[in-house]
């Protein structure tokens, strides 16, 4: 009824449909009208996570321990909650750095290390082999079973068939062919395969539809809804315990560990990384994916338990592998179309996984394992080849074939001993080893290459020892004693009870030890090793990807010819593409032609990024190094960097200095401003004082004049007295005005000085002669003591006369009549001549001695005492003496008289200088 050729034809038709979708997707992408640039396709493509494991294996697991299959889907749900933070960061980092694969990502983070890239690739390939074998097993088993329709017979596990008669072998060959067709038709600089994504999204729909159809058929067709199914299941003693699967604490432990494991797997399975990161069109698609992808998981898992229980109820005698219930239940019910749909659904789940996984792995193998080795070992020959893009594609094609065949080999060697889920979990545990290095790498700048290498290696070794080795032992390829007694009989090293840790299931046990050593060594070695300059730069780029918007800085310090770079890039991308890209760069830098493009560090970096897109970061580095004579970061370079640093420090010192100077200038300005304000105030004071001083005599002149004017019959004696006062006051007014003008002239430096050589004695004699009247009037005694040896000096005779007159008249003025004595003396004092004018008058108190030289300040209460002078005499004298370079001061004691003294310099040169000034 269902011939083998129908199944084969259906399968091929389905695969061709997929290929058509992929072809259409690529065509649309080439025209710039991407069909995958929407969040729903993106979310559906992520559902490649659900493989034959989900489609067939979950049911098998559920039939064995109830809900125990679910952590594999709860983990991704929890991880998806954090995607907006961590996956978005990985996507951004990958876009900025043109990351093309998981290995590329790890290698780039830790200083573009080729060794690390190779290690990651090896772990990924070896780790994924069981997973691929699982898909092959699922497809070949489902085919073998379906061919027997309507009979239900399990494939005989013990039967060993020749490779050429093995269905799985042909399945592997066909899948390899299709994968090559999907993934290696042409070389994309960004390793993006839009058509493949579209096909995978379509497959996700098909497998969901098929699974839900089977589930609905079982639940509502074979049973009377969920309640009926569960009621009947509860009555079955084999099924009843599955409803409460947690019978001791270790169940919870393995539940939690499976959740953690699948959280890491959803991030770091190469195919998930490929679809979620490399094929991501827009970060914003994550907003939808964070809930739509978990919802898909929920939808495809709703009917797992009903199908499992339905299968257990329908095949009470056993003999039917629970892993095949999805297929065998429709078969048992004679539902041909549904059985075929189930087969296609399973095919869809398995092919989606194999295609994406092997494309991702082949990229890694080519870019991170084969090319670096080829470039290093046979660099000369490779460099001679003009177009390497076909070589790259060939390497990838071979890688795909080899990986799938290795998967088949694993299936032949170890595949039959385990159920589907157990096989898949081995792969999950392998890729989980990438967790510390990647998550640590994007959040912790301190992680070093040595730390990542140590952690990954240790985790991988423990994974192989605790999971891979037992798988081979159980398949009789290794002695059983290895498991039961440990290697060489050492019980502590038993792979399933390492270091004596017993009582856990195999996966939990392996995860505990591998993660302990992986994380421990990653952190420990990172903290005790040092990063190179490149590593440090990359670490910063990765961790601060959201805060640093600038282009990744280039660590190339050398230059190269643009032509060489173009030829190099052309070899990998094709000459036209290279020409285009470099022309775009030239346009961007507004250069007229390609030839003007300098081969500077930026251009080299541009070429490196182009190459990284085609062959991965570590290969690109090797390639660029072949044309760029990179100057290593030698002592000189380091000195330059130090130099730059010290320049910066010097600049900062200079800035500090400037700022200090500015502060000082500000302080100076503030002081100057205060002085100006003070001077302004003094000027105002001066003007108001002068006007006051002028008004006093004017008022009396005016008052007396008015009296004289209004009273013509005033008696003569009175009139003469009044007129005398008017004359005296006028004289005082004149004097005052003269003195004010005089002072203003001297202070402003506009005064006229008539200098001549003179004898100070003559001046003193003349002054005394001129004031003789005063002495006689008050009957004051005069004593002079003028030294004869005083040389002549240069000065303005009239001015010095003015000083002498002022001092002498002041002395007389303040002496008591009759008993007063004035003493004038002159003597030489070093380089100066000193003149003293002393009296025995009322004297000046200490505080007043200073203010007598201030303008308009007369000692005594000016309000009650009638002013005896203008208050300008002494200030003018001091100005005159100061002008000649001398000094005027007073020594006095209240009630004992005072002595005014001044000095004048004798040194003609000094006075000449002064005069000149």
């Amino acid at each position, binding site marked *: 009824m269902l011939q083998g050729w129908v199944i084969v034809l259906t399968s091929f038709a389905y695969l061709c449909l997929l290929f058509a979708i992929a072809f259409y997707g690529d065509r649309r992408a080439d025209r710039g009208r991407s069909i995958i640039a929407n969040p729903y396709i993106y979310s559906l493509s992520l559902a490649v996570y659900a493989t034959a494991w989900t489609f067939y294996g979950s049911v098998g697991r559920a039939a064995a321990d109830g809900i125990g299959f679910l952590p594999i889907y709860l983990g991704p749900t929890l991880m998806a909650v954090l995607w907006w933070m961590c996956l978005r960061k990985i996507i951004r980092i990958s876009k900025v750095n043109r990351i093309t694969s998981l290995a590329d990502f790890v290698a780039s983070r830790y200083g573009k290390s080729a060794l690390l890239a190779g290690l990651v690739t090896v772990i990924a390939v070896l780790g994924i082999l069981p997973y691929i074998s699982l898909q092959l097993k699922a497809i070949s088993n489902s085919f073998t079973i379906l061919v027997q329709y309507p009979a239900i017979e399990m494939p005989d596990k013990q039967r060993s068939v020749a490779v050429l008669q093995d269905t799985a072998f042909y399945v592997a060959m066909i899948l390899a062919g299709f994968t090559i067709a999907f993934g290696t038709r042409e070389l994309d600089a960004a390793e993006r395969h839009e058509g493949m994504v579209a096909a995978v999204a379509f497959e996700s729909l098909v497998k969901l539809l098929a699974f839900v159809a089977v589930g609905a058929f079982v639940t509502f067709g074979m049973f009377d809804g969920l309640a*009926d199914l569960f009621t009947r299941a509860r009555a079955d003693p084999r099924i009843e315990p599955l*409803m409460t699967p947690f019978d001791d604490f270790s169940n919870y432990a393995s539940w939690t560990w499976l959740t953690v494991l699948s959280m890491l797997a959803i991030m770091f399975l190469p195919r998930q990384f490929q679809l979620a990161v490399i094929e991501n069109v827009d970060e914003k698609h994550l907003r939808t994916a964070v809930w739509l992808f*978990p919802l898909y998981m929920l939808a495809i898992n709703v009917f797992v338990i009903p199908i499992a229980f339905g299968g257990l109820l329908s095949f009470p005698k056993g003999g039917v592998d629970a892993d095949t219930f999805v297929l065998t239940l429709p078969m048992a019910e004679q539902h041909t179309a549904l059985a075929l749909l189930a087969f296609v659904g399973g095919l869809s789940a398995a092919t989606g996984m194999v295609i994406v996984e092997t494309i991702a792995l082949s990229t890694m193998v080519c870019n991170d394992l084969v090319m670096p080795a080829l470039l290093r070992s046979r660099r000369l020959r490779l460099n001679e080849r003009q177009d390497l893009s076909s070589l790259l594609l060939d390497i990838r094609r071979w890688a795909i074939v080899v990986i799938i065949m290795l998967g088949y080999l694993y299936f032949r060697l170890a595949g039959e001993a385990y159920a589907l889920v157990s096989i898949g979990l081995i792969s999950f545990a392998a890729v989980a080893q990438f967790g510390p290095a990647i998550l640590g790498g994007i959040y912790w700048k301190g992680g070093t290459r040595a730390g990542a290498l140590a952690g990954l290696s240790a985790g991988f070794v423990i994974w192989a020892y605790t999971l891979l080795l037992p798988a081979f032992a159980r398949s009789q390829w290794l002695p059983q004693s290895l498991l039961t007694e440990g290697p060489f009989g050492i019980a502590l090293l038993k792979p399933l009870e390492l270091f004596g840790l017993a009582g856990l299931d195999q996966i939990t046990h392996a995860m505990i030890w591998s993660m302990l050593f992986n994380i421990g060594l990653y952190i420990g070695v990172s903290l005790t090793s040092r990063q190179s300059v490149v590593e440090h730069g990359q670490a910063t780029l990765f961790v601060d990807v959201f805060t640093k918007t600038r282009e990744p800085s280039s660590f190339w310090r050398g230059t190269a010819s643009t032509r060489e770079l173009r030829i190099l890039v052309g070899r990998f991308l094709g000459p036209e593409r290279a020409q285009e890209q470099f022309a775009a760069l030239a346009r961007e830098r507004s250069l007229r032609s390609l030839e003007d493009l300098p081969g500077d560090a930026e251009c080299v970096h541009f070429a490196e990024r182009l190459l990284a897109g085609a062959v991965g970061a570590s290969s690109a580095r090797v390639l660029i190094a072949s044309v760029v004579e990179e100057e290593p970061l030698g002592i000189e370079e380091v000195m330059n960097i130090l130099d730059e640093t010290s320049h910066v420090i010097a600049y900062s010192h200079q800035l500090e200095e400037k700022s200090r100077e500015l502060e000082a200038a500000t302080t100076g300005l503030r002081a100057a401003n205060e002085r100006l304000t003070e001077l302004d105030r003094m000027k105002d004071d001066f003007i108001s004082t002068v006007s006051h001083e002028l008004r006093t005599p004017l008022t009396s002149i005016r008052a007396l004049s008015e009296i004289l004017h209004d009273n013509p019959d005033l008696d003569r004696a009175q009139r003469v007295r009044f007129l005398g006062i008017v004359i005296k006051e006028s004289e005082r007014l004149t004097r005052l005005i003269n003195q004010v003008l005089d002072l203003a002239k001297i202070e402003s430096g506009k005064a006229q000085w008539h200098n001549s050589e003179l004898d100070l004695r003559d001046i003193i004699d003349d002054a005394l002669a001129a004031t003789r009247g005063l002495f006689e009037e008050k009957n004051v005694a005069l004593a002079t003591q003028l030294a004869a040896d005083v040389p002549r000096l240069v000065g303005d005779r009239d001015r010095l006369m003015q000083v002498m007159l002022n001092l002498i008249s002041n002395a007389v003025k303040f002496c008591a009549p009759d008993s007063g004595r004035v003493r004038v003396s002159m003597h030489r004092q070093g380089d100066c001549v000193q003149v003293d004018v002393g009296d025995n008058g009322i004297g000046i108190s200490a505080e007043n001695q200073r203010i007598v030289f201030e303008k308009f300040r007369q000692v005594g209460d000016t309000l009650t005492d009638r002013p005896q002078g203008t208050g300008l005499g002494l200030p003018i004298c001091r100005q005159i003496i100061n002008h000649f370079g001398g000094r005027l001061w007073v020594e006095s004691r209240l009630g004992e008289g005072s002595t005014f003294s001044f000095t004048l310099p004798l040194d003609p040169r000094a006075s000449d200088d002064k005069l000149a000034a």
Partner: protein
Amino acid sequence: MRKPGIDQQRLIATFILGGVLFNYPILSLFNTSSSLLGIPVLYVYVFLAWGFVIGLVAWIAERPR
């Protein structure tokens, strides 16, 4: 996500909530043989909690901006 700060905090809180809901000891509360509408409570609980977490994330991620 208009205010990245608050949305990220909400997402992290949802993650923690999910971690608690899907683990011991909350899980052990439903590890009983009783059933709801004929369906074992453990299954009802796990799928409802799962749906709740997904709904919460959808609400945080897709709120109108």
